[in-house]
């Protein structure tokens, strides 16, 4: 198939429409506005609906409604807008509703700036709203993955009835690269939405989508049922990329745009004769604990690189259970704060020198 030259944000929009998403609700914010721009233009051509809502809060609740009716639907925003959506995401989680939320992160806290950031990691993977839930979090590192993981996010979300978040940032959203679009093929075993409230259609049973459970023990049982799904996700849906880790003495771990920059640093290290690899989580929830634990079994020290002051590093350290040292190098997001491959290479050298 022909290779196209497109922006990361456009690839999300293309992947969503190809995957059968026919409802988009959103509100503009930099650096993600290419997504609604593309969808507003293209989704009507396939009979879909684009709504620019009055606010982020309205759009997440429209997503909740569309999803409750059984439709494949999405919203997108950037960090401050995603904060506003947390209440709705909590309600979707409690109501076991699928749906795609895209966060093309910008820097914060507060209004922050429009630069790339990975400081929404905690908010994304630990359950950003109230009530103790998890959502599926996918972290693409290329334009191609923006397309592929958007499709995957819909499938995983439908399969587990857990909302899915695509977590990227201004770098992966704005970068243009080659994209090979491919037709969406729905997994044959994707369960049909027998819970959707789309009219009785002659059935006698009543379907209710809700997150309110008042009877003795009801809510506790509901929470354990949700917990069991999160455990299933951990068991079956972990995805990661292991780059040159087989013979590595030292491993860098990073996700998304930071992983791309770190990959160049790993290439530099290899050219300098250092046996360095990269472990890149593709799913941030579920987190590739096992893969990291296996590296720790081999006694491999690590360096975690993030565009924040240290978030994923906590999960890396939990996964390796203090068996190996995990160093951290991060740059707090903001204008001019993107680390360079050269900078990360120096960190690799420094940490390896301290070990060997």
């Amino acid at each position, binding site marked *: 198939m022909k*290779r196209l*030259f497109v922006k990361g944000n456009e690839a999300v929009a293309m992947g969503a429409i190809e995957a059968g998403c026919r409802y988009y609700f959103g509100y503009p914010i930099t650096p993600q506005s290419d997504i609604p721009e593309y969808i507003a233009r293209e989704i009507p051509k396939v009979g879909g609906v684009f709504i620019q809502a009055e606010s982020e809060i309205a759009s997440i609740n429209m997503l909740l409604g569309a999803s409750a009716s059984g439709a494949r639907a999405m919203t997108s925003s950037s960090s401050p807008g995603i904060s506003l959506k947390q209440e709705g995401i909590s309600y979707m989680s409690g109501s076991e509703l699928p749906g795609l939320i895209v966060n093309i992160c910008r820097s914060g806290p507060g209004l922050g700036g*429009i630069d790339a950031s990975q400081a929404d990691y905690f908010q994304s993977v630990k359950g950003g709203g109230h009530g103790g839930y998890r959502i599926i979090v996918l972290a693409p590192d290329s334009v191609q993955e923006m397309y592929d993981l958007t499709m995957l996010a819909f499938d995983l979300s439908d399969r587990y009835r857990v909302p899915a978040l695509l977590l990227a940032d201004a*770098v992966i959203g*704005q*970068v*243009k*690269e*080659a994209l090979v679009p491919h037709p969406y093929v729905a997994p044959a075993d994707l369960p049909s939405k027998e819970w959707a409230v789309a009219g009785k259609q002659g059935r006698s049973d009543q379907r209710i989508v809700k997150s309110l459970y008042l009877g003795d023990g009801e809510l506790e049982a509901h929470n354990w049922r949700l917990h069991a799904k999160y455990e299933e996700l951990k068991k079956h849906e972990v995805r990661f990329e292991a780059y040159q880790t087989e013979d590595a003495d030292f491993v860098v771990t990073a996700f998304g745009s930071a992983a*791309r*920059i770190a*990959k*160049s*640093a*790993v*290439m530099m290290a290899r050219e300098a004769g250092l046996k360095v690899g990269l472990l890149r989580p593709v799913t941030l929830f579920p987190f590739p604990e096992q893969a990291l634990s296996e590296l720790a079994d081999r006694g491999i020290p690590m360096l975690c690189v993030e565009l924040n002051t240290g978030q994923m590093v906590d999960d890396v350290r939990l996964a390796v259970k203090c068996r190996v040292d995990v160093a951290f190098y991060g740059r707090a997001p903001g204008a001019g704060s*993107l680390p*360079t*491959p*050269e*900078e990360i290479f120096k960190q690799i050298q420094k940490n390896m020198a301290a070990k060997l």
Partner: protein
Amino acid sequence: MIQDFFMAGFGGQGVLLAGNLLAYTAIEAGLNASFFPAYGVEKRGGAANCTVVLSDGDIGSPVIGHPSTVLLFNPLAAEKYYPQVKVGGFCLANSSLIKDLSIRSDIETVMIPATDMAIEAGDARLINMVMLGALLGRNQIVSLDAVKSGLAGILPERNHRFLPMNNKAIDAGFAFTNR
């Protein structure tokens, strides 16, 4: 093979279009490419820059700390990025606007009166095509013809009437460095 390019100037000089065109042409030619733009919130006059990485294999970082080929369109860009050019690298600087550059001895610097040449080709805004042509005169990672047809590929049909003057500007830049 992996090569990186960095271009910087102010909004309205077409810095991003030049980078976009280089990356697009490379993709059409079967290479891998990344084009990463960075610009201010202003529509015109703000700082604009982009990084292009071309490779026949994997591309790691779309962001480069010390780029090996650098195109500087204005004095502000020169001040900020000339010191960042990788040792042994190549820099093309627009001498129509950049007047007092203290030339580094550890890189190769070519001064080109790109704004004047653009005006001569028909419009000051053709500076991006002059600079890109001059780059191709030194580095044919993609061919002159491929870039010209690439331009026709990325420009909307309604702007195709501007192709001849753009091609003229590309040729002028090319001739300047490919002597």
